[in-house]
């Protein structure tokens, strides 16, 4: 059985942002924003 070839694990820059940390922060902030909108939606129609 052939063993898998080593992969290139080199960490490139993410698109748009300069660092991965900024990318992660973007995802989490966006998520917080979505939950906030859901909360406002709940309040508006309760």
């Amino acid at each position, binding site marked *: *059985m052939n063993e898998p*070839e080593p992969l290139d694990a080199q960490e*490139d820059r993410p698109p748009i942002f300069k660092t991965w940390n900024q990318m*992660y922060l973007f995802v989490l902030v966006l998520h917080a924003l979505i939950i906030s909108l859901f*909360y406002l939606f709940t309040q508006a*129609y309760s």
Partner: protein
Amino acid sequence: MEIVDWIVMGGTLSFIVLYGIWKTRNVNSVRSYLMGDKDLPWWTIGLSIMATQASAITFLSTPGQAYEEGMQFAQFYFGLPIAMVLLAIFVLPIYYKLNIYTAYEYLESRFDLRTRSLTAVLFLLHRGLAAGITIYAPAIILSSILGWPLRSTVFLIGFLVIFYTVAGGTKAVSVTQKQQMIIILSGMIVAGVILVLQFPEGVRFSDAVGVAGKMGKLKVVDFSFNLNNRYTFWSGMLGGTFLFLSYFGADQSQVQRYLSGKSLTESRLGLLFNGILKVPMQFLVLFVGILVFIFFQFQKPPVHFNQANLDKVEGTVYESGLQALDAEYDVVFNQRQEVITGMIGAIRNDDEAAIGNAQNQLTGLNEQEKKIRQEVDELILTVDPDAKTKDTDYVFLTFVMNYLPVGLVGLLLAVIFSAAMSSTSSELNALATTTVIDIYRRSAVKDKTDKHYLNASRGFTILWGGIALFFALTADLFENLIQAVNIIGSLFYGAILGVFVVAFFMKKVKGRAVFFATLITEAIILGLFYLDHLKIIKLAYLWLNPIGCGLVMLFGFILYRLGVDKGKEPHGA
């Protein structure tokens, strides 16, 4: 179903399957069969991850759940983006560095073979069960539409999925999931638009949503902290994060998807893509359920959504009783329509007193409706004591079959079948991969040729397909299909995640300690679930995930402190 619908459904599904088989006609090695060619870009990985998670169950149960209980289920996914970020930071780089086929291979390098095998077996147990349910769900559709016996339908669908998966392997799974997700998302959006277009004249979208809100269906976020409440912000953020860390980080059906990315960067972006899109997508699916709910406020719904159950009563001495209940249901529906029309006027005029009055009247009418529906259930059970009277999963299907235009019925059925195919094929492929890589090749039959393991992979795919079929034939529809899958997952995910958390973050704890910690934890988790089932304790199943994870960490640490690992050489992670 019209001939046009059959053509749309058959054509769509045939195209996807044939395209997948054609694209994978050159798959002739284990690596290609189980890992693909590792050339996927981030957006394909993201869609593939979403398609794997979004089974037919998602599109049958979720709208029905919104219809019945409102939109609180959206909170279940609140932990998902957090889990995606954590996996992208801590787990993906290690998997890429070790260049592994399965997540469980990592556990041998960190702990020992025994822990790797135990975790792989736990995965095989719960994923094997879940695969059965993902076959069972579309079987309900066909048996309901065509009047076929459920068991024959399960067999037919199961054989088709097994054939497709055996033929294509991982690469076929990935290349078809793009088309499947496009069809799924388009179909759900089209269903939503058609629903809105079918609202009665004079009822605006804002009116309809306002009514749903006043009827308590639009409560998405619930900040109350109640362990017995299944879906709250806290259970989603805490329990959900643990569940999704385990599902995406340690469930081979997902790990296999992002390990076929062409680089670490592409895989990371694929996970984050899923993290961004998944919660809005679930909101959309739930909102379609709300639109169905609104639609049936103006269009009389059946007194029971599973027509097959009603058919059982027809022609018996209880038929006249059913007709009487249906007539009562008509009266309640008409009264309700009047109240809702009044409520729309009150909402437009912002008349709080009138709105409150309408809400009170609706509460009373809902109680009457609930009582009638319960009496119908009792009639059904009198005729067939083994009948499943919970009809939530039939709500969306009833709308699709009876109210969508010709052609779109076929498209929506293609959506459900695409979802079933995408998730089931991923599951069977992952089950076969784990069996071959972690058990068969590692411990049972070593040093054979590539062709031997390729044939074994195909053989185990067939075997797991057979096991999934068996569970599909015997699984009880004990509550709600999607909840059943999640409950099964929660029994094992916590412990599996605990093993991985110890592996990543508790470097001093070694194989023997974590192995016994996992066994003890699994016994406790099953005990807690049984106590909850007996109603001795009350514990929502999502909490089993953090409890399971925490217990493995706790017992692992205690056993380490007791010297269980004494004499063991440390392994690097």
